[in-house]
């Protein structure tokens, strides 16, 4: 994926760029606001990581321009400012997420991944089964009025099971859908995720049923 990093502190920019390059993304790194605005006019990105305090043109202004130009690129804002004087927040200006400096680099990576997946056209439609509503955009499942945060693979698993309630999925089938063919994962991983998902959806009106030796299925409690 193609990432534009706009960060004027060398030490920070270097680390972020290195991290994202290490996991296979291509990173363009700009240190001035004006240069970043220029490049954004001509190039499309899958993610923009934007520092707020920049020389020449500040991050909020770039964000405003980007949204005015109806650019679909997701923007993750990094801010070192305190909100003592801010009347508007990054989120209100159209940022998709923000992190307060100093941040945990793993958290930055994780949030960036969520934004890029969403941008890459991952299905954002809402899936319902029993009283479970899966909402990818907020990374959560709603059970009644309760929203439960889910991890990426838990979401994928729930999506597979909930989109076709009653159908039985074998362990191998699920393993392939979750991890692909490349990754070398033990079949026990499926049990682990099923276990976690069951715990998180504890009081829902739909259950994940284990059929020994066959696989798993999602059953809504319609009869009750």
């Amino acid at each position, binding site marked *: 994926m193609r990432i534009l990093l706009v960060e004027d502190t060398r030490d920070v920019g270097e680390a972020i760029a290195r991290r994202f390059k290490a996991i296979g993304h291509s990173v363009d790194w700009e240190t001035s606001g004006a240069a970043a605005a220029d490049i954004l006019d001509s190039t499309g990105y899958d993610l923009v990581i934007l520092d707020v305090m920049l020389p020449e043109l500040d991050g909020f202004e770039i964000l405003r321009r980007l949204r005015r130009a109806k650019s679909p690129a997701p923007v993750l804002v990094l801010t070192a400012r305190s909100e003592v004087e801010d009347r508007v927040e990054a989120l209100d200006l159209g940022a998709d997420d923000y992190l307060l400096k*100093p941040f945990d680099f793993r958290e930055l990576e994780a949030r960036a991944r969520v934004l890029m997946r969403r941008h890459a056209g991952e299905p954002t439609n809402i899936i319902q089964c029993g009283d479970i509503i899966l909402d990818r955009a907020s990374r959560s499942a709603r059970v009644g009025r309760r929203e439960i945060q889910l991890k990426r693979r838990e979401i994928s698993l729930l999506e597979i099971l909930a989109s076709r309630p009653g159908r039985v999925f074998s362990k191998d089938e699920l393993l392939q859908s979750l991890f692909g063919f490349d990754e070398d994962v033990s079949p026990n991983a499926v049990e682990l995720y099923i276990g976690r998902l069951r715990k998180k959806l504890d009081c829902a009106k739909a259950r994940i049923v284990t059929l020994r030796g066959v696989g798993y299925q999602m059953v809504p409690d319609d009869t009750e």
Partner: protein
Amino acid sequence: MTRNDSSLFTRLAVLVSLVLCVGATALASAAWYYARAAADDAYDRVLKGAALQMADSLTVDGGELIVDLPASAFELLGLAERDRLFYRIVDPEGKTLTGYADLASGSDLSAVRSDPVVQNGSYSGDPVRIVVVARAFSDPALSGWAHVIVAQTTEARRALAAELTTRAVLLVLIMSVMALAGTALAIRYALQPVWRLGAALNSRDSQDLKPIEVDMPREMRPFVGSINHFMGRLERRVSQLERFIADAAHQIRTPLTALTAQVDLLGHDRLGPEARQHLERVQQRAEELARLTNQLLSHAMVIHRADAVRLAPVNLVDIARRAFRAAVPITLSPDIIVSFEADESDPRVLGDAVSLREAIVNVIDNALRHGTLSRLEVKVSSQAGNAVIEVEDDGPGIPREAWESVTQRFATPKQNGGTAGLGFSIAAEVASAHGGTLGFRERNEHGFVVVLTLPLLTGEGD
């Protein structure tokens, strides 16, 4: 009056009424004195006239002094109906010719030869007014001074004096009451600008530090001037503080981020076991420092905003949901169940969205760091006129005796080790700035709950 000790109105009113009281007393005394003098004067004239008429009626016939009292002498005196009259006529030898022999003249008879003398005295126990008139006879058979003494009881003149005094006192009283009422009105009117100034100050927004522009009388101007001067100083202070917090935030966070970035670059994998241990400690410390910095800045910001930001109606569910998403890291262990739940009441409060979010973020962050073992629940609801945000975890909880101290700065719940820092302190600060409270619910089989309670917005608009 003790209650209004320091009221300008009372002070002035008390002073003015004191002066009026003294004045009224003096005037009443004067009125009484003059009334008596006037009554005496009037009745004395009649009395003197009667005595002179009686003296005129004395004639000498054959060496004998003849008394032939004219009726007209008593007619005038009869005007004072209730008063009794006593008289005595003394011949030149000092013998009483007629009348009450025991009526004393009360003075030296020879002193009255030029002019009749009127004085006070008493007869048979009653106070009387006595007039003595002398008449000279130079008849060859009878020569010398004869005296007429007439006494009259004083009832009528006292009655007249009393009536005159009463009327005068009544007038004085009416005038005093009018003066007092006028003074009260005048003071109220004169003090009105003070009330107006107070009202103008009170109706201001807490963040409005512009000079006061209310029409004030000349006498009030120094006062308004010093208020405006003070406002100016306060505004400079506030903006200095604002700038300081903003600068500090940027100036500290940037190198701190750079530090963590560079530590991150070192990478675990390439290091030996010992170096890796050191690196981990550096990372831990840097993280602690980052958290503390954020909390200190957030604390300063929250305190500053409590005075400087105008509260507006906000939707607490939106704020809590945002706080929830900001506070729960994606990298959180997948075995922890994290949930958010808002009831259908959709609570709205009068508040500052930024501070409220900061408070909720800090409570959740605290729970994740020091409480949660495998479950964290955030619930927003309305209960009995309050919006309630509950953050529940399945950790050990905080013992009741430590509840008070954890909301103070840098208090440490012992069993957790490490410092709880400012999280609860920030939340408590925000709660009280919004007229709410930060509380705890005893650990039960379900979990330990931190409760943020805020008064619900009543009615529409702000």
